[in-house]
């Protein structure tokens, strides 16, 4: 059996992961949607636009042809930017078969109650699906910092194959879980909560209220996740709390898009991006919570501020009132 892994998407995360994993001897095929990027990686071993200054392991084979990558690898890691997911998955449907195992690393749902794994099952003939999430930032992987992620799938086979391909001792530890919906939801909602913490930091709230916000956020996200079928403890793991901690860490120079969006809005600065995975997750999360009949004030506040044009002071006021009333 082929132990090769196909990494779909040569963004910062995909490139760093491909390089790290190739370094330990795994056969890696990297798909770059943009032919120029593929050429740059092949010729220069760099991806300047996404990971400036980073040298890519010579073992990484790169292609701008999706079929080449899926033909060479049974195990696929989907790591494209979330707005590209629908289109890429649709294209994957034409070049994959039932033999493939697909693990996605996308942190936003497709629609209310429709996860990326649902999309993969609807658009391709792949049945063995999983999700990868956790506090492994692209730059940490690139710098060979010790990182950990969780791969969740109802199939032991997917977890085992992902571990065999991606686990790099002392650098990247891959944990396993059967809670697919739990990890998908945690991964998405942790991004939304990251924005909330970014907003609080931008406003300069004290560390006490900041801690309360994070605790309440975890409780709220857990409620939503459990109502959609997740296990209660999953959000407290790498994909939920782990993600939230790394992306909101004051010491980390590598701030996430979600965190930056929160800070910029709070400070009234020009926005680097109008929306992020986390902001989309917040909007979907609010709708999901509504559908499931679960309270979700923090997600509601994030969605209102980012997408609803509600002034942050008003949203913060509502949140504070909510604390007094309910919790």
């Amino acid at each position, binding site marked *: 059996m082929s132990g090769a892994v196909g990494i779909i998407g040569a963004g910062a995360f995909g490139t760093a992961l491909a390089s790290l994993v190739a370094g330990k001897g795994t056969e890696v095929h990297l798909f770059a949607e943009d032919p120029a990027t593929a050429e740059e990686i092949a010729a220069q071993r760099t991806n300047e636009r996404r990971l400036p200054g980073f040298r890519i392991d010579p073992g990484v084979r790169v292609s701008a042809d999706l079929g080449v990558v899926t033909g060479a690898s049974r195990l696929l890691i989907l790591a494209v930017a979330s707005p590209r997911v629908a289109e890429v998955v649709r294209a994957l449907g034409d070049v994959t078969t039932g033999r493939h195992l697909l693990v996605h690393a996308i942190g936003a749902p497709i629609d209310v109650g429709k996860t990326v794994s649902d999309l993969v099952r609807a658009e391709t003939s792949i*049945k063995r699906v999983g999700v990868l999430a956790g506090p492994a930032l692209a730059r940490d992987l690139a710098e060979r910092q010790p990182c950990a992620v969780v791969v969740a799938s109802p199939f*032991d086979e997917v977890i085992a194959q992902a571990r065999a391909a991606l686990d790099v001792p002392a650098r990247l530890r891959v944990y396993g879980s059967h809670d697919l919906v739990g990890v998908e939801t945690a991964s998405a909602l942790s991004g939304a909560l990251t924005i909330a913490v970014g907003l609080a930091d931008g406003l300069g709230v004290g560390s006490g209220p900041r801690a309360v916000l994070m605790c309440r956020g975890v409780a709220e996200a857990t409620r939503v996740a459990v109502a959609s079928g997740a296990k209660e403890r999953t959000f407290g793991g790498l994909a939920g709390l782990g993600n939230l901690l790394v992306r909101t860490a004051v010491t980390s120079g590598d701030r996430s898009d979600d965190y930056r969006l929160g800070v910029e809005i709070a400070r009234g600065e020009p926005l680097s991006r109008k929306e992020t995975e986390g902001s989309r997750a917040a909007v979907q999360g609010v709708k999901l919570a509504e559908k499931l009949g679960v309270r979700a004030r923090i997600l509601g506040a994030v969605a209102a501020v980012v997408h609803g044009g509600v002034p942050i002071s008003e949203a913060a006021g509502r949140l504070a009132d909510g604390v007094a009333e309910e919790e």
Partner: protein
Amino acid sequence: MYTAPSAAGTLNHPDPLPAHALSLTLAHGAGEFLYISAMAITPASLRADSHEQHPHDRQGRQGRQVKEAENRLAHFNAERETIVAEVERRVLESRAAEAAVRRDASLEYVLNDVAFQEIRRLERGPSSSGEKKRVGEWKDLARHLAKMTEEEKRQRLADIVGTYTRDICGNFNPRVFRFATRLLPALISGMLAPGSIAQGISSLGDLSGKLIIDGPLERIRACTDRGTLVVTPTHSSNMDSVVFGWSLHRGGLPPCTYGAGKNLFTNPFISFFMHNLGAYRVDRRLGNGLYKDVLKTYSQVLLERGYHSLFFPGGTRSRSGGVEKRLKLGLLSTALAAYQKNIADGKPQRRIYIVPATINYAITLEAETLVEDYLAEEGRHRYIIEDDEFSRLGRIVEFSRRIMTLEGALVIRYGAPLDVFGNRVDEDGESIDARGRRVDPVTYVTGDDGRVQDDPQRDAEYVRTLGEELVRQFRRLTVFMPTNLVARALFDRIAAGVGTRDVYRLLRAPGGEAPIEKVREDVARLRTLLAQRPELGAVAERWAEARPGDLIDDALRMFRGYHTRPVVDREGDRLIANDLRLLYYYQNRTAHIAPELLA
């Protein structure tokens, strides 16, 4: 022109009786049922219906004919001993292999478990005095296990497996058969007034208008060219297997073998038909792992050998009256196992197809017993009901007469076939993905070397998702009868009046009634919703466009006559629920439609 198989479905009989004749008879309601059964024993009378037209079938039948060769059941008797030997061999080999690697799978452990379960069952559960005597044997086994040699244990295990296999497979006994054939005519003349026989004959002609078969029959027939069918219907009544046998024949599909509860075989009369319709026996009282293993292996071997099979994946009749939402995956898993064996044997083209189906009655034979059992929350303890309406021939006769006089009161709806992974299949029987592209199903279980990779956890997950797909299909394929719609509307009104949907509280609350005007509105709303949401099911075609008032009148007619009291009556401009339990039962068919959707 379609030609029925001339010798079909003869599971345990050396001198095959045409199953189409039998299955036809069985569906005709018991009046006709008994009469034609008697005819069926006279070979000369059997050819009569094989060329008749069935103008009411939705799908044209002029398509493909079912080849003689496809009816594997006709060869069952010749293969029976081989099958028994194969099942025994596989079970014993796999047990021996497990015992060699796992301490807790040692033969001593396996035998002890069987003995323990049997002793507990015989001492606590209901069983005949003859069976009770066997407690001693099992106790003896448990006592001596520690002193037995490995060879003795192997022999004992082989004995038990052999007994189980033969019990499942059915032991055709010519004496029982002769007894049953002698008994039949006497039964008929004793039970039926001459008038009903005449009535029975006259109703034969327009039978097909009353019992409707719907679905992509042509596509299902095409699949029999490629492989083996596993028909998986919803389960409401013990009449189901009989009605299905008829509908398969009627739909131009080959007969199926199926597992019937052993309790149904206790009545020699019913047992006779069960055997001849291709049934094998499932003793649901035997909960031990070894028995289940034998049963599953038997089913798998039958599928590998191309015997079309029928499973009720709900495991038992729906107690609540609702469409199954949790399935028993044990027998279903044998479809995937058989397909993998086919691949491993170099026959990947020999496919296995899952055919979801629903059986929809306007009234259910055993409704009273079933819902009582459900409400008593005794489902678990009384998993096997031995004293229900099905055990009383008089009730079957009554029920059959009733349902035969109601136009369109029974609809069997087949769904499009699926592969064992839950993929749809196209007209050629090839698997296709959700977007219609062809998929090679072999790729789900083979490695890059093309060989089957053994992975029970993966298989369990495939079967679980197949089960989920079947649950979705069951809902989509549900056909709502006027009784279901009116019961739902009236139940909702009563529940709203009392302020709870909790049936136990409703049963204690007085005044189960509502203005007919409101029920009419609710029925119309329910119908509009169903028209927009086909995944929730569909209103029976006959009533899809009918005026709500007419639909209610028809429901009232159906509710009268069979049940002890009419479930619902009309008094002036009000509908009165006479029996809230039965109202609940009939409305439960719509239970998967959340009340919010109707708000």
